[in-house]
């Protein structure tokens, strides 16, 4: 029931002989992924590099990544969950309904062939993109692929990871987990962390208009979020920290220009496999770093009278 079976990208480079990309287009979105990690490099146990690997692309349309794959499986939009659930059954030699399978755009024979190849692999790796995780079914689609990878380990070695991007989103996830226990959608308004995706995740809070201020760092929700969320951001005090003026800056009350992390500000970035990489700035910036701005705001806030909880039960729980 759920879980995540993963590895660092070097394991893929050194061992993976069977790779599935699902709902992603690395050729255009992660252009170094094929050449640096997953397809072409020679690895310790894959001495022939690209020739030693079989690559499968599963997507709803033939993207430029399809050219890089040995097998391209084109399914109908929003059928990922159906296909993945079918695969979970097929690896366990369960029967499925061929007619219902055909509605996904793929045939039972194609899926059975995929399963046979997966089981013959020495080390299989699955990567998924937003074509899986942000289409109908969302987290359940990702869950289906993660489950499939976990279950494949009864037959051979398999791992699975999301193709994350957009700055240091993995780093935010990592730091939130060790400071609050939860990866995202954390609510600290009661003085301790609470978590409930759908209730406390940013987009849901904004759409419902639950928050009365916004502080935005390293993101541009004004460009990506649905209209009600954007309208709410425009109606409340919104503060943006960004090296450049973003869509969100334009609807915010305050925009603070900061130094570009990795170019003129130091720090740590986490790769999609959660390996921490030190950032050594090459240039100097006239602008303060994000960290410096946040520290100064914190100092100013700390001068205000402290908010203390009044709930005796909660207070005594500390003891």
């Amino acid at each position, binding site marked *: 029931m759920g879980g995540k079976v993963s590895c660092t990208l070097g394991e893929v480079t050194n061992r993976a002989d069977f790779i599935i990309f699902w709902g992603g287009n690395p050729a255009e979105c992660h252009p170094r992924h094929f050449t640096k990690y997953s397809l072409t490099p020679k690895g310790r146990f894959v001495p022939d590099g690209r020739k030693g690997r079989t690559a499968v692309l599963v997507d709803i349309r033939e993207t430029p990544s399809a050219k890089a794959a040995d097998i391209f499986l084109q399914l109908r939009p929003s059928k990922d969950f159906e296909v993945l*659930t079918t695969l979970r*059954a097929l690896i366990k030699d369960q029967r499925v309904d061929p007619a219902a*399978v055909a509605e996904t755009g793929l045939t039972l024979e194609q899926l059975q062939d995929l399963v046979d190849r997966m089981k013959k692999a020495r080390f299989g790796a699955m990567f998924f993109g937003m074509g899986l995780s942000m289409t109908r079914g969302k987290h359940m689609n990702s869950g289906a692929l993660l489950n499939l990878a976990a279950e494949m380990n009864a037959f051979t070695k398999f791992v699975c990871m999301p193709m994350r991007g957009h700055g240091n989103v993995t780093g935010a996830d990592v730091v939130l987990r060790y400071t609050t226990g939860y990866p995202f959608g954390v609510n600290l308004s009661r*003085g301790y962390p609470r978590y409930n995706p759908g209730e406390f995740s940013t987009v849901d809070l904004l759409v419902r208009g639950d928050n009365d201020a916004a502080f935005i760092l390293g993101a541009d929700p004004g460009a990506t979020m649905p209209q009600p969320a954007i309208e709410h951001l425009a109606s409340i005090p919104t503060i943006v920290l960004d090296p450049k003026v973003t869509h969100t800056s334009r609807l915010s009350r305050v925009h603070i220009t900061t130094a570009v992390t990795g170019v003129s500000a130091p720090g740590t970035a986490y790769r999609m496999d959660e390996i921490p990489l030190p950032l050594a700035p090459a240039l100097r910036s006239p602008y303060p770093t994000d960290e410096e701005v946040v520290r100064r705001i914190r100092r100013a806030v700390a001068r205000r009278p402290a908010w203390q909880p009044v709930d005796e039960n909660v207070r005594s729980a500390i003891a």
Partner: protein
Amino acid sequence: MWLGKNRRRLDEFFDVEGEKSEELRIVGDAGRVKWIGRDMTRGRIAVEGHAGMHLGSRMAGGAIEVSGDVSDWLGAEMSGGAIHVRGNAGGQVGAAYRGSLAGMRDGTIVIDGRAGLEVGQRMKRGTIVVSGGVRDFAGLEMRGGTIVLGAAELRTGAWMLRGTIVVLQSIPILPTFAYASTYSPTFLGLYAQRLKRLGVEIPVDEHAGAYRRYTGDAAIPGKGELLVWEPRG
């Protein structure tokens, strides 16, 4: 009650009347009030209007009635008692909170209107009835209990292990469900009677149609059943 991070008195927001009692009436729009009836074990709450998220969450006994709509996580992880919503509900009705192994453990939820995603997710026992339709993933990872749905969108019963889902309209069936047999409603008589006591009628006239029975989900592999009403002719 809490307003954000601040604790406030109930009477700052509502006119409070009457004595301490096991019967509670909430009149007006409580659509943004969360956690009404959380952990309740007995008594009765009547909401005349809407109610917010987590209504009756983890309740173990008693009854809640809402005349309007409710939001997500209605009766989430509840273990007993009864909830009746006359309007619509959000998603995750009777579901497990993220990460939990079990959703609803027992009790009854009846919704006269529609409901959202993941109704009855990971439920182990109890009954959920949604007379209107539900969205995707009803009975997701269900491990027991009964769900009755007027209609459903996609992926009904996905990854279910055990339990029964009755749908009163034709629905898309996952490839991992196998058609097993067609039930004459005659044999669902007792079942129908039990549902009738909850105020829900399912078709029982064998001249009108029959229930197609599917088993699954083979992905687990599970032994759940889907009963889909098919009118005759």
